[in-house]
C-alpha cells in the first residue's frame, strides 16, 4: 500500500509542468553556483599568488634579514568557501607578521570591494537556504488540501488506506520525486568544479557530500512542514498563504532579528577601547625604554664595531623585555574580549536556532570551514607562523625581531654584502580543517534539522488524523 502511494506521488509530481519548470530553474541555478564558485576560487587563488609575489619582491635585494619589514601573510582561499561563503568574506585576510606582538587582520573582501557587499554572492548555500525551501513549499502546499479540492482525496480513501500510510507515502514520495532529481545537477556541478580546475581533496569531497546531505535534510524539513500545514487547512490558497508567511519568518526574519536582538543583549568590550588601552600602554613602555637608551654607555670603548654590537644586543634585550610585557597585557585584554564574544554567539545563535534556516547555515558553514571558527583557526595558525618566523630571523641574525625599533648600523668598509634569498623565508599556508575537526560543530545542527523533519511529520500525522476527507 505504501509503495502504491509513493508511486502515485512520484508519477503525479514528475509529470506535472510545475515540476519541470521548477526543476529546470533550480538545476540552472545550482550549475551556475558551481561554475561561478569555481571561477571565483581560481580568481582568488591568482590574487593571493600575486600578493605573495609582491610581498617577496619588496624583500629582494635586501642584504640583511633584519631589514625585512612588511612580511605579510594571506588567508589562502578554500574551494569549499566558494560554495558556502559563510563569514569568509567578512574577516580580514591579510596580516602583517613581525617577530612578536599583535597582528591585526586587514582587508576583508567586502570592505575592499563594497559593491560585493551590496549584492552579495550566489553560492550553493544561498540556493539551498532560500530557493530550495521556496521550491519545497510550492510543491507541498497543496499536498493534502489540493487533493481535497480536486476530489482525489476521498477517492483514495474509498480504499482501505490507513491515514498513516497515506501521510508517510506523501512525504516519502514528494521527497523522492524532488530531491533525487536534484542530485543530477549537483553531480554535474561537482564535475564542472573539477573540470574548471578546482582541486578538492577526498576529505573535502566528503565534507561537500555532508553539506549537500544537510541541504537535503533542510529541504525535507520544509516539505514536511508544507505537508503539515496543508493537512491543517481546507483550501490550498489558505495553506499557501500560511506557508509563505512561515517561510518569510523562518528564512528571512528570525535568523537576522534573533542575532541582532540577542547579540546586543550581551556586553562585549569594545575593540576601540581595547586598542586605545594598548596604544597608551605601549607609549608608556616606550617612554621608559627611551630613558634607558639615553643612559646607555658601552663597556668597551676601543672598537666602534664592538660598541655597535653591544648597543644592538642592549637594544635587543630591552625590545624583548618590552614586547613580553606588551604581549601579556594584550593577550589578557584579547582573551577577555574573546570570551565575551563566545558567550554572545552562544546566546544569539542558540535563540536563532528556532529556525531551520539558521541550523542549515550553521551546519553548512561549519562543514565548509567558513563558520565563525574560521577566524579562530586563522589567528591560531598565524600565531604559530609568527613563532616559526621569529625563530627563523633569530637564527639568521641573532636578534629577535621584536615589534620595536631596530638598529642596524652598516660600517662602510666597502665589503659587498650578499642579498638575502627570499625563498628561504618560511611560507604561510593556511591549513584547512579536516572532517574530524568540523564534524563536532556541524553534527548538533544537522541533528536539529533531522529532528525538525520528524517533528513536522508527527504534526502532519496528528493533523491529518482529524482531517475531513470529503
Amino acid at each position, binding site marked *: 500500500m505504501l509503495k502504491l502511494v509513493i508511486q502515485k506521488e512520484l508519477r503525479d509530481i514528475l509529470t506535472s509542468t510545475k515540476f519541470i519548470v521548477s526543476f529546470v530553474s533550480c538545476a540552472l541555478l545550482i550549475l551556475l553556483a558551481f561554475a561561478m564558485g569555481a571561477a571565483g576560487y581560481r580568481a582568488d587563488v591568482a590574487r593571493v599568488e600575486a*600578493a605573495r609575489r609582491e610581498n617577496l619582491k619588496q624583500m629582494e635585494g635586501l642584504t640583511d634579514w633584519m631589514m625585512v619589514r612588511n612580511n605579510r601573510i594571506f588567508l589562502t582561499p578554500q574551494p569549499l568557501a566558494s560554495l558556502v561563503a559563510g563569514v569568509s568574506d567578512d574577516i580580514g585576510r591579510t596580516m602583517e607578521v613581525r617577530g612578536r606582538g599583535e597582528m591585526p587582520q586587514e582587508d576583508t573582501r567586502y570592505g575592499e570591494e*563594497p559593491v560585493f*557587499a*551590496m549584492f552579495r*554572492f550566489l553560492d550553493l548555500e544561498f540556493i539551498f537556504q532560500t530557493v530550495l525551501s*521556496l521550491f519545497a513549499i510550492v510543491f507541498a502546499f497543496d499536498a493534502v488540501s489540493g487533493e481535497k479540492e480536486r476530489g482525489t482525496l476521498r477517492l483514495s480513501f474509498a480504499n482501505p488506506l490507513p491515514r498513516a500510510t497515506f501521510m508517510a507515502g506523501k512525504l516519502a514520495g514528494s521527497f523522492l520525486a524532488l530531491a533525487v532529481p536534484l542530485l543530477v545537477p549537483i553531480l554535474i556541478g561537482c564535475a564542472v568544479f573539477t573540470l574548471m580546475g578546482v582541486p578538492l581533496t577526498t576529505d573535502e569531497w566528503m565534507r561537500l557530500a555532508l553539506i549537500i546531505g544537510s541541504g537535503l535534510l533542510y529541504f525535507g524539513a520544509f516539505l514536511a512542514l508544507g505537508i503539515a500545514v496543508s493537512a491543517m487547512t481546507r483550501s490550498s490558497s489558505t495553506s499557501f498563504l500560511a506557508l*509563505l508567511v512561515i517561510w518569510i519568518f523562518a528564512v528571512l526574519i528570525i535568523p537576522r532579528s534573533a542575532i541582532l536582538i540577542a*547579540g546586543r543583549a550581551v556586553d562585549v568590550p569594545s575593540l576601540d577601547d581595547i586598542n586605545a588601552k594598548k596604544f597608551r600602554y605601549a607609549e608608556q613602555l616606550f617612554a621608559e625604554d627611551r630613558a634607558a637608551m639615553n643612559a646607555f654607555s658601552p663597556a668597551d670603548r676601543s672598537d666602534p664595531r664592538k660598541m655597535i654590537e653591544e648597543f644592538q644586543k642592549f637594544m635587543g634585550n630591552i625590545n624583548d623585555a618590552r614586547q613580553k610585557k606588551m604581549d601579556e597585557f594584550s593577550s589578557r585584554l584579547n582573551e577577555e574580549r574573546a570570551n565575551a564574544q563566545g558567550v554572545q554567539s552562544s546566546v544569539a545563535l542558540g535563540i536563532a536556532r528556532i529556525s531551520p534556516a539558521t541550523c542549515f547555515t550553521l551546519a553548512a558553514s561549519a562543514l565548509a570551514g567558513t563558520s565563525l571558527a574560521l577566524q579562530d583557526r586563522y589567528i591560531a595558525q598565524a600565531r604559530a607562523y609568527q613563532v616559526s618566523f621569529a625563530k627563523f630571523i633569530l637564527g639568521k641574525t641573532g636578534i629577535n625581531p621584536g615589534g620595536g625599533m631596530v638598529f642596524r648600523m652598516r660600517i662602510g668598509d666597502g665589503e659587498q654584502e650578499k642579498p638575502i634569498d627570499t625563498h628561504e623565508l618560511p611560507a604561510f599556508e593556511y591549513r584547512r580543517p579536516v572532517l574530524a575537526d568540523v564534524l563536532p560543530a556541524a553534527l548538533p545542527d544537522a541533528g536539529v534539522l533531522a529532528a525538525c523533519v520528524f517533528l513536522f511529520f508527527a504534526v502532519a500525522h496528528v493533523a491529518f488524523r482529524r482531517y475531513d476527507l470529503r
Partner: protein
Amino acid sequence: MFGTVLVKELRAVLLSPKFPATFAVCSLLIVLSVFIGIREFRGAAARYAEGLELAAQTLRTQSTWMNLSTTAYRKPDPMQVFVPGVDGDVGRLSPITGTEDVKLTNSRYADDPLFALFRSIDCAFVVQVVLSLFAILFTYNAVNGERESGTLQLTFAGAVPRTTYILAKIAGAWIALAIPLIVPVLLGILLVVVYGVPLGAGGWARCGLFMLASLFYFTFFVALGVLISALTRRPAMSFLAALAAWVVLVLIVPRIAVMAAGTLRPVPSVAETEGWIDAFAKDRMDEQMKALGARWQERQAPMQGMSPEARQAYQQSKQQEWANEDDAARQEVQKEIDAYRVRVNEEQGNRVADQERLAFALARFSPASAYQIAAMTLAGTGVSLKATNEAAMREYRRAFTQYAAGKQKESGTQAGFRITVDSQTGFHFSAPRERGTLDVSGVPAFAPPGVKLSEVVSSALIDTGLIAVLALLACAAALAAFLRYDVR
C-alpha cells in the same frame, strides 16, 4: 465605471484573508526593522562618540610632535535606521600617521563576525523582498482567477471597457498594498521621532524620496503580477511563473550581475597594490641610504689630518647644516613615495569605479537592484561610502601632518634619534627629549564628509526614474496582454 470596478476590486481584496495577513506581516516587519535600525544607529552613534573621546585622550597623552598620530572615525548617518547598506562592511576608522596611508579598517562585521552571518533586517529589505512577494501574491490570479470562477465574462457582459477594467484592477491591488506599507512606515516615523534620531530637514527629504522609490517599486510587481495573469489561462500556471519571475528578479539577477562584473573587470587586491608601493618605497630608501653614505664620506674628507680638538669644533659647527641636508633629502624621498602612492591609489580607484559601473549596469535589469541602489544612495550607505570617506581622511591627513611638522619645527626637537660612533670620542646616543605633554588644542579635527542632498537626490533620481519607467512598461504590457485576452 472606473470607480465601480475599483470599489469591487477593493472589496474583494480587503475581505480576503490575504489582506490581513499582508498587513500584519508587513506592519510587524517594518516596525521591527525600524526598531532594530534605531537601536543599531544609537549603538553606532555611541561607538562614534566613544571613538572621538578615545582619539582625543590618546592625542593628549602623546609626548612628542614627531610621529604624532591619531585616528579618524566615520560618522554614522541617521538614514541608516532605514537603509544600513554597506555601513557594516566598510571600515569605521583609519589611523592617521605621518608614515602610513589612510585605510578604513575595523568594519562592524570584521570586529564582530557573528553579525555577519545573517546581516541585518532593514526597511529597504522588507520592501524589496517581502512586499514584492506579497504584491505577486495579490495579483497572480487577478485576471485568470476571475476567468476560472466565471466572473470575468459576467463583468464583460456589461459595457465595461477593457482598459478601465485592467487599470481598476491594478489600482485596486495597488491601494490594497499601499496600506500595509504606508501605515507601518508612519508608525516607524513616529518611533524615529520618539527616539530622537537626528534626521534633520535633509534627512526627511531623503526619507520622502525613499518612500517614493518604494511605492514605484511595488507598483512594478503589482503590474507584473497582473501581466502574467493576463498571459496565462490557469492561476496555477501564472502563480508559478510569477514566483519564478520574482526569484529571478529579486534574488538572482543582482547577485549574478555583481559576480559577472567581478569576473569581467577584475581588480587587483589591496594586498597586491600595497606590495607595489612597498617595493617602490624600499627601492627609494635604498638609494637614499647609499646617497647618505656617500655624503658622509664626503663630509669626513675635509677633517683628515685635523687635530681632535679642531675636528670636534668643525663637527659642532657643521652639525646643524648636515642635519638639515639629511632631513631635506629624506623629505624629498618621502615626497616621491607619497606621489607614487597617490598615483597607485588613483588608478586603483578608477578600476574599482569601472567594476562598479559595470555591476550596476548589469544589475539594473532588475528593479530590485535599482531599488537597492536608489535606497543606498539616498541613505549615503552605498558603494561611495568608502571612497568618499577615504578621500576626506586623506585630505585630513595632509592637514594633520602639516600641522604636526610645523609644531615640531617650532619646538625645535630634531626628528629621529641621533647616534654618533667615533673611534676617538666613543659612543653617543640621544633621543628627543620630552617637553612635557603637548598642547593639542590647536590640532585640526576631522570633519566627516556629510551627505550632499543635491548630489544624492540627483543620482537616486536615476534609479527611481528607472523603476518608475519599468513599472509603467509593466502596466502598459499588462494592458496590451489583456486587450487580447479571451474572457470566456
